């Protein structure tokens, strides 16, 4: 009876520790990426500002969400990984320079590689290239319940950009939003 009781509580301890461990690892992984990843700023493609913050989260679209891989490259499929190389331009903006199913072997100091997943892919027969819509995991920004209108007013007709942290292997995380060059909604790590 005693040992049965001990087994029960041992089992419960194992399950609780295991599940909290998994959740904790998720948090640690993210915090590590946000704090040590390289910061880049991406302009958000404007959508109808009235519908932008209607829900409790925002869907963010970027120029780099649509990529074209050159002729002869491996065909892209839905769900497959894709690596996009971004280059920092003279005015401080990040522009897409290359994309493909393989990770580039070397990147310059003014370049970062983002890892994404293909959402839709199609082939442009005329040019023999692939066109894909890519998800980098930085497309949803959750905002506190009921603050959508406020943020909507703040953004208005101004330019919206996203602050992104990128790690060595190309994982990206949203750090905050930038309105007209000013950081808003930059959340603390904890």
């Amino acid at each position: 009876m005693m040992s049965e009781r001990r087994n029960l509580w041992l089992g419960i301890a194992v399950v609780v520790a295991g599940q909290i461990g998994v959740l904790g690892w998720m948090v640690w992984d993210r915090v590590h990426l946000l704090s040590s990843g390289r910061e880049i700023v991406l302009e958000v493609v404007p959508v109808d500002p009235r519908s932008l913050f209607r829900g409790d989260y925002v869907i963010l679209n970027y120029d780099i969400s649509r990529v074209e891989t050159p002729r002869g490259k491996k065909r892209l499929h839905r769900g497959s990984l894709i690596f996009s190389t971004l280059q920092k331009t003279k005015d401080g903006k990040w522009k897409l320079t290359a994309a493909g199913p393989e990770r580039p072997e070397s990147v310059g100091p003014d370049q970062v590689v983002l890892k994404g997943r293909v959402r839709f892919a199609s082939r442009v027969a005329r040019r023999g290239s692939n066109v894909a819509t890519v998800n980098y995991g930085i497309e949803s920004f959750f905002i506190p319940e009921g603050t959508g209108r406020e943020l909507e007013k703040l953004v208005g007709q101004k330019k919206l950009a996203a602050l992104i942290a990128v790690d060595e292997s190309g994982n990206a995380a949203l750090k905050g939003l930038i309105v007209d060059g000013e950081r808003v909604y930059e959340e603390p790590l904890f």
Partner: protein
Amino acid sequence: MRSYRSRLDNDLPRWREAGWLTAEGEASIRKDVASHSRSLELAPALAIIGAVLIGFAAMSFIAANWDEMSRLARLALIFASLGTAYGIAGILFERGYPAFAHAAILAGVALFGAGIMLIAQMFHMDGHPPDAVLTWALGALGAGVVLGSNPALALAMLLMGLWSGWEMVESGVVHWPFLLGWGAVTAAFLWRWWVPGLQFAAVVLSIWIICLGYLLFDGHGHGVVVGVGLLVGAAGLALPSLSERWSAFSTPAVAYGMTIAFAGLFALQFVEENVPLFGLILLAIATLTLVLAGIGFGLRTSSSAALWLGYGGFSLEVLALYFKTVGTLLGSSLFFFAAGFIVIALAAVAYRLHARMEAQS
């Protein structure tokens, strides 16, 4: 279970009046049935529903107080509620309320899943949602195995199905890793020898196999589904002669196999486009034969599930054929004439076979 009891209520007085049973005998049978019945009881069912509601309450509390709390406080609250749920389960086990303890475990697993979603939301994670579902499923499987909880294992199976379904919808190709996840949860069901869980595993696997038809060969894999279904059915028929222990699974295996084969045949006739008329007629004959064999099997083994699946399949097939043939070369009336003729011919064959078997015995 209730139907068994109500049948006994009908039969016992009759048997007693016929003199086959004494009054004491009847009382003992009733007592035995009452003590061995494992009917679904209301209290544990309510406890499980209550546990799920409490899980939702905790989540909406955290979500509603998003602004006031720091991230650290939110995380602490998630972790604390998770620990509390399992702690309550332990106390309930000790006090001898296992049904309520399992409800608390289920609440713990639900909180684990909600924790994954809340953390994803907290850090604006928008990666690959099926991965989150898989993590949740593995958490449910772990809790089910370590704590010996059937409801947690059932949730793990449901989540494995959701994971695979989501992957297949996203990618449009067959998701083979499902078989690993399914196998792991099914192994846990077998280890605990939980028959309702095994039935659930069979349902989930059957749905997955039927989905193969829509994914293999650019969506033209229904023939494979028919083949797999027939194989499963044949294996079910062969089971009793192979192993004593597994013979109880014979009838369900035949029923699942026939259902899978029916789904494949149905898709070949009505989902595939440009089916030639001759091919359609052959497929319809094959389907009706399968369905009637299913009804015959149900009658012979007195399996009401097989019987109703057979009737259901027959109605579906005839209805779909009707809609398909309305206004085509093959007039509906001609079709029904042919179908009726085939069914009567099959009935005649069945009658002959039955009569011959009677004569032999």
